């Protein structure tokens, strides 16, 4: 499977994401610089990695969402290509309006960096089919701006449509309704603050992130 990792100035989880994709597919992803205007032909999966794109200046993800390559990412998402945004990648997806809501400063104002328990809310999506609904998993977080916000009407709608992929079992950042990961209406775009690419190897202390990649990349055992 041909995959791509979009790299912004300030991305710092791009290599972790590349390792995760190569581990699961056996093939190194294309690393696509933010100033590119086209994705390589035949890309079947796109990842927006964590980090601090453009130094988090203005707002986390704001400038990355307006970078040239994002137009191609949005086009691909519109054609149904799976797009995964993790941490800063989630912020970019909301700023690009590919996902609803916004990510604000953590309610406790602290940078939170530890493994957190999540509940799998939706096990029907292409990203979460490897989990059971209601399953508890542990995935690391590392962020300052992970406090998910959307107005009540939007929250009701995404909950009603089954678009909450993951919730925090312990709400570490004050997110509305403890939401940790959100799916697009068509289900092929997932944004999440926790880092599944940091939980694919036993040396990481856990492998609960592996099944997300296995499911999304079509190699679920």
């Amino acid at each position, binding site marked *: 499977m041909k995959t791509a990792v979009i790299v912004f100035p300030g991305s710092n989880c791009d290599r972790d994401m590349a390792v995760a994709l190569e581990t699961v597919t056996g093939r190194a992803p294309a690393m696509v610089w933010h100033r590119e205007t086209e994705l390589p032909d035949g890309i079947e999966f796109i990842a927006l990695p964590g980090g601090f794109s453009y130094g988090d200046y203005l*707002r986390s993800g704001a*400038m990355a969402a307006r970078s040239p390559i994002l137009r191609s990412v949005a086009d691909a998402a519109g054609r149904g290509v799976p797009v995964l945004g993790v941490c800063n990648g989630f912020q970019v997806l909301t700023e690009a309006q590919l996902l609803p809501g916004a990510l604000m400063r953590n309610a406790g104002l602290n940078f939170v960096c530890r493994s957190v328990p999540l509940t799998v809310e939706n096990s029907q999506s292409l990203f979460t089919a490897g989990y059971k609904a209601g399953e508890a998993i542990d995935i690391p977080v590392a962020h300052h701006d992970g*406090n998910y916000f959307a107005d009540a009407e939007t929250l009701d709608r995404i909950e009603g449509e089954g678009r909450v992929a993951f919730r925090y079992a312990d709400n570490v950042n*004050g997110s509305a309704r403890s939401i940790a990961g959100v799916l697009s209406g068509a289900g092929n775009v997932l944004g999440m603050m926790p880092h599944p690419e940091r939980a694919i190897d036993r040396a990481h202390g856990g492998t609960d992130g592996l099944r997300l990649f296995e499911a999304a990349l079509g190699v679920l055992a």
Partner: protein
Amino acid sequence: MKVQVYVTLKPGVLDPQGKAIHHALEGLGFGGVSDVRAGRFIELEVADDVSDTDLDAMCAKLLANTVIENYRIERA
């Protein structure tokens, strides 16, 4: 000419930074402050013929996230 843009969180959106500032003011012994909201101030130096429509588009497309923020534009 200078254009000043004030970006503020919408009413009802939790403002953790404002709360921290409020707490710090109380810690300094200042009473009578009932709430603090933090925002962002952006000053642009623009040509005189830049239109209001363009300034509004700059705010809506980049300078403010209208999911959570309001903005106000003042020509100096």
